[in-house]
């Protein structure tokens, strides 16, 4: 419990910003027309690929001869990058069709 209280006190500013981000996410999406739900979900999915940054930082912090951890880091970067690039590319393909007919 003490560790928890200390954690809260050390990270107060972060707790504020996280709370605001939660409400911002709600607000951004709550008035969206159904037409756009699929591309929106796909775009949001691409953004969730931001977890790739963790894999990049992991590789940078690993000693260069620790091949096992480096390989796992590599796997993480590959998986994350498929999510990011594939996600944005497929969203763009969907939205390209919306644009055509105007």
């Amino acid at each position, binding site marked *: 419990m003490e*560790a928890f209280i200390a954690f809260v006190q050390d990270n107060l500013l972060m707790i504020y910003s*996280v709370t605001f*981000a*939660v409400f*911002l*996410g709600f607000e*951004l*999406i709550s*008035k*969206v027309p*159904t037409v*756009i*739900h699929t*591309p*929106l*979900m*796909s*775009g*949001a*999915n*691409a*953004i*969730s*690929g*931001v*977890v*790739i*940054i*963790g*894999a*990049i*930082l*992991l*590789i*940078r*912090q*690993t*000693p*260069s001869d620790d091949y096992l951890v480096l390989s*796992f*880091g590599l796997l*993480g970067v*590959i*998986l*994350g*990058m*498929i*999510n990011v*690039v*594939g996600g944005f*590319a*497929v*969203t*763009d*393909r*969907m*939205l390209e*069709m*919306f644009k055509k*007919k105007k």
Partner: protein
Amino acid sequence: MMSSFWFDTAYFAGVLLFIIGLQRLGHPATARRGNLLAAGGMGLAILAAIFSPLQTDYGNFLWIILGLAIGAAVGFMAAKRVQMTSMPQLVSLFNGLGGACAVVISMVQLIGVEQTSPMSQPELGTILLTLVVGSVAFTGSLVAWAKLDGRLKDNALVPPFPTIFNMGLLLVSLGMVIYLAIIGEGSSLWLISLLAISLVYGITFVSPIGGADMPVVISLLNSFTGLTAALAGLIYGNQVMLMGGILVGSSGTILTVLMCKAMNRSLWNVIIGGFGSSGGGSSSAAAGEQVAKELSRPDAAILLAYSQSVIIVPGYGLAVAQAQRACRALDNELTARGVDVSYAIHPVAGRMPGHMNVLLAEVDVPYEKLLDLEQANEALPNTDVVIVVGANDVVNPSARTDTGSPIYGMPILDVDKAGKVLIMKRSMRPGYAGVQNPLFFLENSFMLFGDAKDTLQALLQETKVGV
């Protein structure tokens, strides 16, 4: 340090671009720009992550570049090659890979990296939670992908007493997270058991949920991946991961809730409900007595050509048969003959919300022709002919009347109120929710069996030559 200031600025700009991108993505006119802005934000964040100064930094840039190159090539090819009709599966698969990425890094943090100082309880708890949520997002998305891709039957991999089983797994895994965080124990055996339980939970969490609810599940799993990214951001003290993840987590959650509302059900009901598993034994028995009427293609073509107004109701069958182009061609022919043709789009038709909109946009159906649920239900009683192309549950009148039906209460398109209903179906099998549809046996309903694309093309030919 000066340089660190600029990298922090790049991270900040990345978060800002995510926010603006998400906002623009919410409006059809600006969505494409929004997507590119968010992608730009991601590029900026990745560059900053590669070059920003770190306390312990071994470089290893070749490893990073190699991973980025392979991932980008695979992701790009997959996105370019996929058929538009199987996009929901692909999004689900991408989402699962994001979850897998989080699993890999949290596992390595726990076992592979030698700690200079022991982790605090909140730190350890965060990593363990990343592992659990990431695993659920990973295997859950894979199951959703396999179901949508037709690789997994609806009742496959379902544990006995799914609700109790899943509650048990959830409690055990969360209990283990709390216990391990408090005792500060990170032994491999514990961690691998936790990983295994979470991976299994992801499978058994999604497997009992019927295919009709997959849009909701994908959206929910998407917000799980966002949450994982945010948790991983806490581990690395990285603001882009934290904020990007939270944004996806909260917007994904609200999108999930919106979709549940469209079906008039609660999220809880979707998760424990397992559509179709309770599916109407009584109604299917009653249906055995009834016979659906078939209509020949020439007769159907005449009916269409001499009607004043036609509403097309597309469903997943349209996507499976790749029939959007044939559908558009028939629409053109009828419109040229002076028939008023429009499309009724149910919010959860297909396998993703807006799935039908994307398919129809692909073949240049103008916005004005697309009616949403309310507009369509206003227009349907004054419509001569409705063509149901591979939709089933979203036009099932028992959702209005039969309190015993598992889909009772879901808002539907009231196609039975139109003059005549033509239903294109491959067979008399019930729809994805596993519920029998009394619509097929109504006085004004006519079945056109066969592949939706073939049937539409045949109707087009008959309309062109025969009438």
